[in-house]
């Protein structure tokens, strides 16, 4: 230090005060970064899931709306265009060459074109999409019932979850863990409103909203409803996929059970 002692002391006091203040402020932040705290907070997700599953059962339906309630603008979150070479090529041909691959723990792996998917038992529903951020939009969806597709593929006894692999990479990472994926369990997979949706508001899905196929899981939040679905796999556990939490956002701290 080249300053005089008076200035030196004042500096010392200032930095001491800044340190004390900083410690007090960062105490809260350090608490919320502690692993033990986080694993304690995680219990709530289990309680919420268990209680909701008990109250909802397998078949309670999400509310459905009338045509007049459809939102004029439906916000698109996450990727709004996967923009990979392969995706662009498929999109240019109106997804005529696209095939949905259904594999994993199934007796009969499938490869379905959009035409074939449109011939599967379908459902049309006007539902509310609740984003984890807090907003809601209402749209009309038509899609193949996931339960029917899975019945055609015949699940093997070990299958407990269904994984959806998507065409979009939301975060560029070296290990490829930034690619969007989602998992749901068989209770949601077999729910009558769970669809592989290809139409939105009576038109084929646009690129913004997940063309050619997006998942609808109406009793959960928007991030469960993967867009740009390319491949479906029946699996026993999602521990070995990407970072092991069961989805792109789940790997980044969000709940796997997104019913609240």
């Amino acid at each position, binding site marked *: 230090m080249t300053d005089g002692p008076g200035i030196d002391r004042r500096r010392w006091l200032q930095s001491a005060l800044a340190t004390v203040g900083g410690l007090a402020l960062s105490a809260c*932040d350090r608490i919320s970064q502690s692993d033990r705290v986080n694993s*304690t*907070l995680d219990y709530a997700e289990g309680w*919420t899931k268990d209680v909701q599953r008990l109250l909802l059962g397998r078949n309670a339906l999400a*509310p459905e709306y009338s045509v007049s309630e459809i939102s004029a603008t439906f916000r698109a979150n996450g990727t709004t265009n996967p923009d990979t070479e392969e995706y662009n090529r498929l999109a240019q041909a109106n997804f005529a060459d696209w095939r949905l691959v259904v594999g994993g723990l199934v007796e009969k792996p499938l490869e379905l074109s959009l035409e074939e998917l449109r011939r599967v038992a379908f459902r049309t529903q006007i539902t509310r999409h609740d984003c984890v*951020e807090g907003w809601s939009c209402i749209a009309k969806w038509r899609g193949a019932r996931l339960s029917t597709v899975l019945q055609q593929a015949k699940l093997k006894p070990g299958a407990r979850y269904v994984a959806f692999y998507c065409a979009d990479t939301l975060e560029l990472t070296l290990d490829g863990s930034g690619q969007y994926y989602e998992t749901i369990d068989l209770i949601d997979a077999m729910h009558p409103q769970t669809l592989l949706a290809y139409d939105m508001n009576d038109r084929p899905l646009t690129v913004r909203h997940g063309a050619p196929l997006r998942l609808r899981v109406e009793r959960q939040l928007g991030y469960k409803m993967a867009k740009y679905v390319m491949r479906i796999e029946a699996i026993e556990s999602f521990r070995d996929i990407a970072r092991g939490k069961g989805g792109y956002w789940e790997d980044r*701290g*969000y709940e796997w059970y997104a019913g609240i």
Partner: protein
Amino acid sequence: MPVADRALTRGRIAVYRHPLLVRLTHWLNALCLLVLLMSGLQILNAHPALYWGESSSFGSPFIAFGAGRSAAFPGWITLPGWQDLADGRRWHFFFAWLFVLNGLAYVIYALVSGRVRCVLAPTREQVRHIGSSIREHLRLRFPHGEAARQYNVLQKLTYLAVLFGLLPLMVITGLTMSPGMDARLHFLTTVFGGRQSARTIHFLTAAALVSFFLIHIAAVLTAGPVNEMRSIVTGWFVIKPRKEES
């Protein structure tokens, strides 16, 4: 069950005002509300706009917070202190569970022990003189002597409104926003006028609770902070005799 008064020096009387369960649930409730408020503002920061109705009319919100700022609510009032919706939700839902269980423990106790009937419900006499109570309150004059033994009528009505109005409303509007619960309890969405209305009411109710907190603290400070704090920590509240009585 009632704990006997203790006579103190100079004619003062120590009254056992708050049983242990009331004190414990009070402080746990205070902690829960603090965490819920801060994590709630963290969650609101993810989309700091409120709407009426079932869905969001992005072009014409009812309220939009912090236009142009990177975060609508600053870090010192959110949990965690940086923007992280996932962490905010974890804190919010864990403490929401704690808040509900703690609240249920209190409500069951208050009903079974007769606290609601004996301590919180205004007497017919009090209701008749509500006008003069309001006038006294506005002049910041608080009851002394034997009158201080029970809550005054405004206090009773405020506590009842918070305990059986605002706090349950927070939980119910919160549950109404859950897409899972909506599959079972859709009538709630209808009652509140839509999911986005429930979200707006959730926020307005939180704002009302913050106002209650400020008035509550102001009342503690003006009525005698040491005595009030002692009573909610140890249970014992000291009544001083009126000047003319002593």
